[in-house]
């Protein structure tokens, strides 16, 4: 019996150069048996949406530490809809204040994993929420 492996895109939008967390999460997801595509730094919303479409991923994970998560996610939402990727499981991690979590969820983000979240929490969430 073979099951299709869950495919995850981990992306670094904008100009933020902090990639330790993104790479840690990418590796944790790989260790959990998922296929992971990491974009590298400084991706525009357009590039992220294109990569998500081309790689046919189930999950889009964004990592933002600079504080620009709201404008970046607003732009990305539009690009994902243009590419008809609005139904993908979208998660955001990094340095994200609690007061912004609701706003992000309104944009379509399924879960926000702020600094301090364990890798197990992220792995379980992905496993349980990919349909």
């Amino acid at each position: 019996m073979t099951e299709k492996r869950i495919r995850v895109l981990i992306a670094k939008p904008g100009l933020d150069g902090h990639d330790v967390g993104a790479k840690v999460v990418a590796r944790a997801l790989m260790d959990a048996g998922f296929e992971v595509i990491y974009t590298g730094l400084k991706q525009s919303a357009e590039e992220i949406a294109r990569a998500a479409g081309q790689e046919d991923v189930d999950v889009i994970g964004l990592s933002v530490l600079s504080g620009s998560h709201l404008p970046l996610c607003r732009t990305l939402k539009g690009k994902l809809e243009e590419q008809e990727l609005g139904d993908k499981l979208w998660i955001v991690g990094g340095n994200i204040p609690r007061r912004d979590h609701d706003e992000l969820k309104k944009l379509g983000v399924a879960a926000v994993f702020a600094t301090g979240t364990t890798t197990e929490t992220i792995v379980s969430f992905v496993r349980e929420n990919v349909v």
Partner: protein
Amino acid sequence: MKFENESGIEIKSVYTPEDVTATGGDDGIGRPGQFPFTRGIHEQMYRKRPWTMRQYAGFGTPEETNERFHYLIDNGQTGLNVAFDLPTQMGLSSDDPMAEGEVGRVGMAVDTLEDFEIAFAGIDLDEITVSLTINGAAVTLIAMYFAMAEKRGYDLSKLRGTAQNDILKEFVGRGTWVFPVEPSIKLVGDTIIYCAENVPKYSPVSVCGYHIRESGASPAQEMAYAFLIAKAYIDHVLARGMSVDDFASRLSFNFDIYGNLFEQVAKFRAGRRLWAKIINDDYHAENPRSAWMRMIAGGGGGGLTIEQPENNIVRGAYYALISALSGTQTMALCSYDEAYTIPSEKAARVSLRTMQILIEEMGLCDTVDPLGGSYYVESLTNQMEEKIRAVMKDVDRGGGIVKSISEGYIQAAVSRQAYENVRKIERGEIRKVGVNCFQVEEETPDVEFHPFRDEDRDKQVRRLERVRSERDGTRAERALGKLLDTAKAGDNVMPAVIEAVKSYATVGEITSCLVEVYGRYKEPIRF
């Protein structure tokens, strides 16, 4: 139970003179101010002058940043350490589409020379030395600093200051690269040569182990990679016809400090000794100052936690103690809110007071290298020196540091370690107070960013538009044309960049010129 430090050295229950002998003896201890400088680069160290206190600061517009600078100086700070926003660090102007949402957010926005004139107004550049935390766009921002100083009547031949300008580490951690690896090294070489010939007291490069350690390196790897990177710059400049004594004394280092106290102190003492030997043995320097490992240390963001953030004040105090016990030249102490933001005014003041308490109340300046002669510290210093050497040898065997970074191997090695460290913290194998032990029920306070204001961005963009329309357009155009030609010819670009900033060319215009010639870096994805 086995005791082992992060660099993989086993720690014994007690140390005796035999341990010092067994690890290489005490010949290398020497005296402060004398080769190989294990105990410090100066004979009198802090008795003559305490370390420079240089807290990281900068946000929003140049006006706001100028206010913060004056606040810090009024509170006893003795140097400035300038934070730039991400567009500036990437060489973009504030009206670039990629700058959206980022103008003034994690540092000060800079577009033209006018911004520097505002930011440093009323600050005596002889009295207060300025450090620019800039890498990918370093040539432009260093040029602005020189142009601003010259305009205010300072003599460049006497001007002091520092630029971070260590691009190779940006490819490993921090990520504010613009150009591919080879032209990036060439630009660092341009600044070193220009300074050696025209601004000889300026420190054009501060080689950073710091960010490599923050990306997952062990303390021994941190030092080894930094030394290899420094050697890559030295080799490049030597190949362009300079001699080592023309510039080596103006190179400095920026190191991380979190971790085991004794391992850190030994790391710095061993590093100082090893760097002196490298400069003497590999490069045959004649000026003793060429062999000085001058450093800034006091940051350790990776050691701080978002949980129970007040504990970070205590961690910061220990970091400052380590730095003082290690003979640092400058401290930029990480503030308690550094786990999530650029320092607030209050956090910056607490850090400043932490250092002032060490100087005024704790006797840290009374004698030089107070831990010197401890059997433990001397044994560990010997062992750390060997560890650092071993890492350097490994990288050299693998084709050298430039190749290892270009192909992403160093990045892969440190990011794997970062992951292993996270897993060890999650499993409780590495203890982290407030994170996996001694947690409290109370909710972690919410992240407080420096407030981002659209008005700041609008104000900055309006000024940029005004400067662009008021400047002598022909002069700016000519200067940019000359820069393009100089870059194409492979000559030192610094004089042309200085002329361009003097003509009020923008950060974005200058970067575009250089991108046209050098292209852009493409990141190898390895982790």
